[in-house]
């Protein structure tokens, strides 16, 4: 790709970007959210047309007008969110859109044979007859990869492929990628995770604010260097924290049982406690009951059995109001659903749970002056990048939305912080900032319950780790006395 430039109203998303991909290499595209990685790849996949620049494939200039064109040219893409139909089989999903017919009927044998052939050639074992909904995430991703190979992809674009995988599944993916490369496939690996980029890439291109800021190789650059290239300033990768000095139990969970939306048991008799001044991390692959656990603790979902006790008072079932009154702050996993009202300005969103108290309500009416002052203070303190405090929060970038949510939750007196995926979709610079604030909260005596699918986050922040698997706590570890691999095994239910 040569001199690729793409403008959106008000933003230069890609500014004269050059990217070379050699045959049989893994080229990592590293950058923060909003750095222009996705725009660049969407141009390659034909979803956008560049304002300037050209794409060459095997030395020939090509025009890519849409995904169909891209596929025909041998470019395949695996999106972060899989494009699979859960109720269809592997073979049906792979052939979707290019079904073969035998007379008037669907030919199922020929595709199955071809899938098996691909599976054998690239070492991607998969059962064509299995239903997607029965497959673990790692295998679903494998189906996505096979899907592109079935369409004879020679260039494979993987968008944040490790976001949903356990450490062991990541290892499996990497092995697959190495086999593919050995067979002559070329791979563009999009990520913001430094460790993985270093582990898998042959070459690394770093993007920042729509520009290429450097090319490097894993051998030349360590993680700290990559991070500072990404962010544009030195970044503290390790969270700086002193050993915890835990006090009394702030939160205690007693034999909690919670149902999922589908009325199956999501949290199955869980008990644990979080003490003042410590960070307890809950590790686990997503979908093992963490979401329901957090919703029960914060009052968003009723438990069917068990008690949630804060400072020796039972919290009533399903009452976020009671939790807030007891000094609970909650950074929600799903900030669009719970954390903010997108169409409302930052001013309102920053007083979402406090607007009916003094000083924000005076003499029965809302006090705009105080609400606006509060917004300006928090915007400054938490470095929320916004033109002003009246912008609807939905118009901000994900990272800034998250900082605003964190700012609001930290602006109340806090005895317990429930932080669920607190840095999801947030850039490296902001991650550092949010982590620092969480540790500060701990040091000021708050109890912190951290739930994260990012094992690195759990490992670097928590004082104590609980591992959740199929609705149960399957293990507890002191962070200082455990390893990623140990916790990874627990996450897979191997006790």
């Amino acid at each position, binding site marked *: 790709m040569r001199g690729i430039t793409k403008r959106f109203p008000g933003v230069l998303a890609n500014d004269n970007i050059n990217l070379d991909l050699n045959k049989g290499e893994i080229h990592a595209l590293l950058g923060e959210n909003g750095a222009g990685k996705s725009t660049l790849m969407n141009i390659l996949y034909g979803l956008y047309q560049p304002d300037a620049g050209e794409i060459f494939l095997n030395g020939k200039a090509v025009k890519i007008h849409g995904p169909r064109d891209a596929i025909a040219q041998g470019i395949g893409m695996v999106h972060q969110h899989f494009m699979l139909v859960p109720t269809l089989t592997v073979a049906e999903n792979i052939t979707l859109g290019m079904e073969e017919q035998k007379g008037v009927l669907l030919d199922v044998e020929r595709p199955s044979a071809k899938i098996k052939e691909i599976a054998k050639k690239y070492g991607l074992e998969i059962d064509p007859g299995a239903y997607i909904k029965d497959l673990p995430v790692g295998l679903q991703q494998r189906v996505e990869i096979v899907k592109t190979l079935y369409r004879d992809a020679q260039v494979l674009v993987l968008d944040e492929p490790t976001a949903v995988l356990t450490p062991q599944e990541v290892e499996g993916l990497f092995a697959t990628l190495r086999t593919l490369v050995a067979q002559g496939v070329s791979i563009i690996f999009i990520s913001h995770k430094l460790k993985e980029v270093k582990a898998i890439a042959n070459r690394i291109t770093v993007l920042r604010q729509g520009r290429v800021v450097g090319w490097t190789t894993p051998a030349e650059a360590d993680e700290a260097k990559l991070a500072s290239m990404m962010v544009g300033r030195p970044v503290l990768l390790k969270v700086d924290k002193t050993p915890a000095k835990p006090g009394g139990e702030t939160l205690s969970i007693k034999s909690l049982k919670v149902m999922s939306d589908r009325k199956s048991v999501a949290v199955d008799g869980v008990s644990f406690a979080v003490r003042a001044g410590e960070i307890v991390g809950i590790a686990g692959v997503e979908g093992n009951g963490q979401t329901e656990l957090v919703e029960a603790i914060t009052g968003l979902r009723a438990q069917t059995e068990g008690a949630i006790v804060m400072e020796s008072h039972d919290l009533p079932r399903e009452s976020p109001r009671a939790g807030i009154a007891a000094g609970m702050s909650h950074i929600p996993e799903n900030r669009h*659903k*719970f954390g903010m*009202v997108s169409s409302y300005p930052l001013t309102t969103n920053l007083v979402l749970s406090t607007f009916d108290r003094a000083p924000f*309500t005076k003499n029965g009416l809302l006090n705009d002056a105080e609400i606006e002052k509060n917004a300006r203070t928090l915007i400054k303190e938490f470095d929320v990048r916004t033109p002003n405090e009246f912008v609807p929060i939905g118009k901000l970038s994900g990272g800034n939305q998250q900082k605003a949510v964190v700012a609001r939750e930290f602006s109340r007196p806090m005895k317990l912080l429930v932080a669920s995926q607190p840095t999801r979709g947030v850039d490296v610079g902001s991650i550092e900032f949010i982590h620092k604030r969480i540790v500060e909260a701990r040091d000021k005596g708050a109890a912190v319950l951290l739930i994260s699918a990012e094992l690195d986050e759990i490992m670097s922040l928590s004082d104590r780790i609980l591992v959740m698997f199929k609705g149960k706590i399957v293990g507890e570890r002191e962070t200082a006395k455990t390893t990623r691999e140990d916790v990874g095994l627990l996450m897979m239910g191997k006790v």
Partner: protein
Amino acid sequence: MRNFSFAKLWSGAWPAVASVFLALVVAGLVMVVTGSDPIKAYTSLIEGAFLRPGTDTRPTAFLDTLVSATPYLILALGISLAFTAGLFNIGAEGQLYMGALASVMVGFLVKGLPPIIHLPLSLLAGAVMGALWAGIAGWLKATRGAPEVVTTIMLNYISYSVVNFMVNGPLRHTGTAPRTPDIEPSAVLPNMLPSPERLHWGFVIALLCAVAYYFLVYRSPLGLRIRLVGANKEAARYAGIQVNRTYLITMLISGGLCGLAGGVEILSLYRFMPSEFTTGYGFDSIAVALLGQGNPIGILLAAILFGALANGAGYMQFSSGVSNYIISVLQAFIIVFVAAPGIVRDLFGWIRIKRAAPALPAKGGTK
């Protein structure tokens, strides 16, 4: 109301203005197709609604338009409040009926009070009755999750029957027609101007309701709770707002306004409860509320528009020979365009793009 600007005001108002404009155009086309002269019809409509001066026997057209606008305004404020919380109160008509009945009952059953007490008491009875009637739907929604769309419609039918039963039975006066006795003079909501003008103090009450609506919805914490529940129920819950409670309170206030509208109408113009009180105001006011876009000034303007259509229709038919059913057609098109903002936006957006076409090449059209 910080950051006030006319550009912002216009961006909020233009879909409503465009909808009315489009409806006028389409209804005009209907008239052309059916062989009538739309220009003549609209001219006489405006004349009949706004311009005709009063005489010794005939009220001033514009003031009578305000009389017609009064119930629309109060009802639409009530319906709009429910919209704000994400609730669809289709029961305004029933709440208006029950409110009117309660006001009339206090109006003729309670005797010997001075007007300064009797009139407010009668109005209050209407508001409380409307609130309770809508409160049934609110309570079912809050405790059982029953959709208010269904329950408020059902309650409409019940209210018709209740009023019919009361007027034909226990409350029937001694005359031939099934109706209640007249209310005491002390409960009459008086006219503001001497006869033949019909403008009464109910219009001022309606204006006060609009002011109160502004303070409630946009200035009070309760109003913010209602707005947040409507904007993102889950986020409201997360923030500790009791969503079900807010639903109930909203329905109570919404129904209270609709009941008050019934009281105002019955204590001023009728002064007794007839058995057939089929105004249809409660349904037309849904359109008024939609057109007003949640803004009290917008609702006021929309109410005056609908008042004008109601008030000018007769004169239009008389003077231009166009059937006043065209007014229903016009109202229906206004609703269609307001309820489907996409149509309006696409239509006007298309015109704008066509105009700008030479300067702005289509996306992806050039390299």
